[in-house]
């Protein structure tokens, strides 16, 4: 949904509609008094961000805690947990983390492929049952996760499919497709069909036109959709919990060990993932800003 799509845009730094003109009319600056609102809102914003970041800082700080088993009270600084992430509980954390990565990658590849195909068809072709298709794509996003999870689990139970890695991948692919469609569709809609026509005029075969013209132009949207899919899959707990059987994923590992105490190694992995994600996003934002500046210069 829109929050997710916006997140994808920020995630990838690939905001659609990179118009160069400022569509926000500035208007002449009017003389104004310095009022209460001038510092109240910035102050509130700072407090709000501090509030939003508290649990992140907490998780990061406690990844350096010299804890024994559970990681509740501060026992002193150590780098051990970062250096020996996989040594705890026979590597259960790393096992779960590895499963999450594999599931995320496979589900992302399938969902991105299927979703991109749908997005192209929705924008480029007229067909019957169009509104039914849109509804089918919208509903998974408006259904609570617990219903999606229980529904799939009921189906697997009825058909007699044992729950394992495959059922998790099938479930994750399902809820990622709609988000891919929404994200990629915006990109397809902003694509100038004249570029593809030019390709055809130059005797490009349909597949040449697709791979040499359409696909490269859609790539930023596809990448943003893939990043969003991976993030959704990687952090999903509720649907996974219903369809995983005995397979552990990173969120499931945390849920199960919550009652007996989470080892600091889980904080290490979560902090590392956080830092990597932040670097990717900021790099994408910076390169987007650079691209806009470059385009502005050309224009």
């Amino acid at each position, binding site marked *: 949904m*829109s929050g997710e799509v916006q997140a994808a845009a920020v995630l990838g730094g690939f905001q659609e509609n990179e118009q160069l003109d400022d569509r*926000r009319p500035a208007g002449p600056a009017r003389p104004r008094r310095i009022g209460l609102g001038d510092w109240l809102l910035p102050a509130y914003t700072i407090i709000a961000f501090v509030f939003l970041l508290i649990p992140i800082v*907490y998780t990061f700080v406690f990844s350096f805690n010299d804890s024994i088993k559970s990681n509740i009270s501060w026992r002193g600084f150590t780098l051990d947990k970062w250096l020996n992430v996989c040594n705890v509980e026979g590597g259960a954390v790393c096992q779960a983390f590895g499963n999450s990565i594999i599931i995320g990658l496979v589900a992302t590849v399938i969902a991105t492929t299927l979703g991109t195909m749908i997005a192209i068809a929705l924008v480029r072709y007229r067909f019957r049952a169009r509104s039914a298709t849109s509804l089918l794509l919208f509903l998974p996003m*408006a*259904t609570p996760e617990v219903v999606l999870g229980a529904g799939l689990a009921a189906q697997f139970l009825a058909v007699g499919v044992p729950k394992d890695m495959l059922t998790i991948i099938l479930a994750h692919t399902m809820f990622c497709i709609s988000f891919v469609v929404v994200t990629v569709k915006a990109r397809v809609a902003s694509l100038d069909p004249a570029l593809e026509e030019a390709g055809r005029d130059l005797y490009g075969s349909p597949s040449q036109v697709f791979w040499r013209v359409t696909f490269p132009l859609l790539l930023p949207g596809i990448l943003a959709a893939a990043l969003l899919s991976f993030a959704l899959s990687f952090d999903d707990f509720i649907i996974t919990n219903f369809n995983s059987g005995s397979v552990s994923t990173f969120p499931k590992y*945390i849920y199960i060990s*919550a009652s007996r105490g989470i080892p600091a190694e889980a904080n290490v992995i979560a902090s590392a*993932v956080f830092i990597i994600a932040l670097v990717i996003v900021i790099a994408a*934002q910076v390169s987007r800003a650079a691209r806009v500046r470059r385009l502005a210069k050309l224009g």
Partner: protein
Amino acid sequence: MAFAAFATAEAQPQAPKRKSRIALFLLLPGILYLVLFFLTPLISLLLTSLQVPSELGDIGQFDYAFNWQNYVDVVQLYWPHILRSFGYALAATVFALLFSYPLAYFIGVKARRWPLLQSLMLVLVIAPFFISFLLRTLAWKQILSDESFIITSLKALSLLAPDAHFTGTPFAVIFGLTYNFIPFMTLPLYTTLERLDLRYLEAGSDLYANPFTVFRKITIPLSMPGIVAGTLLTFIPAAGDYVNASRDFLGGPDTQMMGNVIEANFLVLLNYPAAAALSIILMAAILVLVGVYVKRSGTEDLL
């Protein structure tokens, strides 16, 4: 808005109509996938919700039937959980809106002059997404536990009654739901506020409206699409959530929501019909509420 995203491109296909075989080829795999793994599971869920325990079977064995009594039973047994789910989700949605609106207003309106700051603040808004949902909830549990620094110092300063608890209370669950879904509220609000044409606000104050009236009569109505999208994006997942309310996280025995009893019935008690009936009730209630809400707020074009 994404609710609109499916509707907006409804219009003019950019290329002239080409062979519909290509459209079919593009659509079929994905649509088939959703039919198999989204639509049929919902039908399975409906059929499961009507099952009866098999005569000779063990626990967790059921036969297909049309036992509508299951619905009556779960409502009788779990009505407090049903009410709690919607009550908590509603409270969390209101708090998230109150928290997010000024924040989104600052990012989308006040920070327009500094695009880099704007995008940096957006990254900060979604930063909680990058750390595991479960770990950030657990972090709050530990920060707000009875032995934590914050709670003990508040008690030492007599700002909090000595026997006050935070974790395990409805307040903690609503707090957790609010925190976890704030980005879902802030982003759509930001999207509409960022496009707010400030000349309308100037026109309002030129006509001698005070700032509050301008806000109430101009800013709020113009940001309605963002408010509707944000409240839906917060309310739907909050009503179905069971992590925050779980005993190992921020909840206690008296804060269990529908998600908790669906999970317990499905995965622990193996009472699949009860879990399925509760899921169907949850989904139906959400669809009805969303439909009414979208109609009443006059933003039907969102769907």
